């Protein structure tokens, strides 16, 4: 089998998995097994592609020509590999978690849930492997639509309202801003391919290119740069596995991945440095970092707090891209992986608390740590990674981002990073600390019949929490891939 078709197969495997889920809808155990097998096979394929990419190969698959000159095509390069690895590894893990969660929580329409979940992963992989802006846009929109049934899973009035916000903001930005920028790029550059060094340099005045950059960065609504962030908290009405994988990993990372990809392969770092709006956008990202943290501070609902924390953390990656230097890009790319593992651990823990103790509010979790020590322990590890403290992987990405701000002579931005970490220290660590050391509220029934979350969920939490620590000791995989992106030797 040629290398190109491995890519095709990798993107197709989740779809095959989805079909299997549909066929096995009357046998829940076989259905979940199908998801896990498809997930394992997908990751195995991505791992195989990783070996090729590490050896410097760039496997490519041309599917078809959609309109003259515009192709639907895949190409695997290191940055896409980072995203694909994260998404494909965490999919089977989340499926494992979902088995415990969905059954423990007695959710309805589980077949539809697993079906669209698998389809969404295909969309995420399509984004990761896209060879040009058009393909990227196709899968970006695909991802929006196939996650809609997941967000509105409960089909309640609240779900419908959230679905409107979700679709409304994501499509407004992507169609209204991003697509205009893409077509503008096509008119100016005559190509949409991702190329090292970019395709836009010298095609138009810096003023126009600065404008296009703004259209792109705000047009990628999935990156949740304020004021286009409202869809993310709205999406939290979904079942927790959706929030965990899609709204901490696949969908939001597709957004920041797109920003990084456009920065590196459409504009190119050299061009970015000359544009007036680059530093302006870096400050917009900085503002989102701080504001997101401040809002997270005030949320008593755990999932809402995590959502705003995600908004804040996503802007780290946008900031990394807009620093327009190698260190910023490396830090941003690594943060895709580090934040993914950390944040998914937090969401897993939040879901576990909901299943086991039926609590959503932080103020009602006091004392829960004594009955659910494993869950809150994992939450603590995940928090460390998000804040950027050793011994968790997040410290590396933040390190490089900090170095990037120094290289760009932006001491103000460095201060923003510091301040945000301090805020994170408070609003995340507060949860396990209160759970372990505070007395339970008087009307709570903690301890009566509450045990840890279902076993499959605990295994999943264990895997992601361990990985978070492991990436502190061995961050080489991500670092090497990102060095290849900025043109250094692996």
């Amino acid at each position, binding site marked *: 089998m040629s290398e190109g078709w491995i890519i095709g197969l990798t993107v197709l495997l989740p779809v095959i998995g989805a079909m299997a889920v549909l066929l096995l809808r009357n046998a829940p155990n076989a259905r979940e097994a199908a998801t896990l097998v498809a997930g394992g096979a997908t990751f195995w394929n991505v791992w195989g592609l990783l070996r090729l990419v590490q050896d410097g190969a760039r496997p490519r698959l041309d599917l*078809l*020509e*959609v*309109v*003259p000159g*515009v192709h*639907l095509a895949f190409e695997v390069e290191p940055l896409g590999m980072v995203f694909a690895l994260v998404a494909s590894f965490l999919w089977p893990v989340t499926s494992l978690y979902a088995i415990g969660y969905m059954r423990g929580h007695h959710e309805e329409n589980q077949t539809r849930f697993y079906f669209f979940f698998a389809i969404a992963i295909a969309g995420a992989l399509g984004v990761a492997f896209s060879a040009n802006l*058009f393909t990227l*846009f*196709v899968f970006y*929109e*695909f991802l929006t*639509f196939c996650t809609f049934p997941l967000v*509105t899973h409960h*089909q309640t009035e609240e*779900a*419908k309202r959230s679905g*409107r916000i979700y*679709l*409304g903001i994501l*499509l*407004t930005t992507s*169609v*209204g801003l991003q*697509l*205009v920028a893409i*077509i*503008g790029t*096509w*008119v100016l550059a005559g190509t949409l391919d991702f190329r090292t060094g970019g395709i836009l340099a010298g095609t138009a005045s810096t003023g126009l290119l600065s404008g296009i950059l703004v259209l792109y960065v705000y047009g990628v609504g999935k990156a949740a740069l304020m004021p286009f962030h409202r869809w993310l908290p709205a999406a939290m009405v979904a079942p927790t596995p959706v929030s965990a994988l899609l709204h901490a990993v696949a969908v939001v990372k597709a957004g920041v991945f797109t920003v990084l990809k456009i920065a590196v392969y459409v504009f190119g770092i050299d061009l970015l440095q000359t544009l007036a709006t680059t530093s302006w956008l870096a400050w917009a990202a900085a503002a989102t970092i701080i504001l997101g943290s401040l809002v997270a501070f005030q949320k008593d609902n755990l999932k809402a707090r995590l959502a705003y924390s995600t908004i804040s953390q996503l802007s780290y990656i946008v900031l990394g891209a807009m620093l327009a230097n190698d260190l910023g890009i490396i830090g941003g790319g690594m943060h895709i992986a580090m934040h993914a593992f950390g944040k998914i651990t937090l969401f897993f823990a939040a879901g576990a608390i909901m299943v086991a103790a039926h609590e959503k509010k932080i103020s009602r979790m006091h004392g829960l740590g004594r009955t659910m020590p494993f869950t809150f322990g994992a939450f603590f590890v995940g928090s460390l990674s998000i804040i950027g403290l050793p011994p968790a992987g997040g410290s590396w990405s933040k390190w490089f981002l900090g170095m990037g701000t120094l290289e760009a002579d932006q001491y103000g931005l460095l201060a923003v990073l510091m301040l945000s970490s301090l805020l994170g220290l408070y609003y995340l660590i507060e949860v396990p600390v209160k759970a372990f050391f505070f007395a339970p509220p008087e009307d709570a029934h903690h301890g009566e019949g509450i045990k840890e979350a279902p076993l499959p969920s605990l295994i999943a939490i264990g895997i992601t929490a361990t990985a978070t620590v492991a990436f502190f000791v061995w961050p080489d995989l991500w670092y090497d891939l990102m060095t290849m992106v900025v043109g250094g030797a692996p």
Partner: protein
Amino acid sequence: MSQNLPALLVVVPLLLAPLAALSGRAKIAWGIATAACWWTLYAAISLLLRVQESGVIRYSLGGWEPPYGIEYRIDLASAFVALIVAAIGAVTIPYAGTSIAKEVSEDRAPLFYTAWILMLAGLLGIAITGDVFNVFVFLEISSLSAYSMIALGQDRRALTSTFQYLIMGSVGATFIVIGIGLMYVMTGTLNMVDLAERLPMVESNRTIPVAFTFLTVGITLKLALFPLHLWLPNAYTYAPSAVTAFMASTSTKVSVYLLLRFFFTIFGEVFSFEQMRLNMVLMPLALIAILAISLVAIYEVNVKRMLAFSSVAQIGYMVLGISFGTVLGVTAGIIHLFNHALMKGALFMAMGCVMYRIGSVQLDKMAGLGKAMPWTMAAFVGAGLSLIGVPLTVGFVSKWYLVQAALAEGQWFVAGVVMVGSLMALIYIWKVVEVAYFQEPDPDHEIIEAPLSMLIPTWVLVIASFWFGIDATTTATVATQAAETLLGAMP
């Protein structure tokens, strides 16, 4: 026979029409109509292939050479439009068999199918004729048959809307014939090629701009460009379902073709755009159509009517493309002719299925239809995605070319309006989706899926709207060539 194919394309349905009227039985009349539709599809495909292979076909009717006789003149644009009309006819006629049996009484059905065939013949005639007076004749044939078909709608309001359409359509036709008459007075010819040659010689005479103006108003009325669209929403809403699907996908498209034919081939883009400043008129009207009429569609609760308003907005896109007066813009207009025919046809047909089962297309009656009629509503969503312009649907291809045409002219504002328009389409399509999928069905009524004879044609168009969105190279190439022919000098 193949040599006479251009004539037969129109003559065969014209001959079959009286047979359908005389048959006296709905089933037989339907069979004759089906034969007519499938014949024209075959003929239109052969003609398009022949034009692509060997260039413009010129055919003198009855062997009378122009300027004495009528000439049929088929270039790529004509063949493409003829194919759209024939293809939509061929897809909607099996659908009509089932839906008309329910909506039109048995004794009137043969006359209904007669009108159907006549309308088909008229629309095809407009597309391929090379004679401006012949255009007017065919336009009247198609319009009169359209009036009578709309009047057969179940709702009694169909009669008043027909009357409204009749009055406005006749005003439009009169304007067109006045314009043609003035051109004839000045040049002494009705043949399009001759007109194109002789008009520049008399261009300085005041009569020509007057003729141009009469034609512009007449044609824009026929194609329902804002603010001359008032006849369209009612006509589409109260016509029988199959007629709405057929008309929405063909008759306004043919009028857009006429616009192209008159402005580019006959008057030439230099006269139309530089002297008469046509773009100063068309572009603002198209932009207003996109924004204002989409807004009206958002607040509409009768889904057929909502789609009708959406059609007016979509016509805005076509006219907007044309108003750039560039190859890219005209390509966008032509490609949207085809693409919009597919998606709007599918949407109206899906609503016809709903009408067939529940007898209403009011939004509040459609609660829970996603469960009760899953295939119908899935077709609606599929075609709706196209209307929104989601990638890998035909709607995206249209948008791609239209925005490209705008940006190539440096019109970022216009590009923005196009995008706002598609987001507004998202709102009104999603309103239906929310009602159908998020509300519980009324437990008192047992609703079942529409019959296959209606679902299959609907899905043919839905699949086509994805097919030509995934592989748009064919349509894009034909549209580009057609635009180049229109903008180039007439051979």
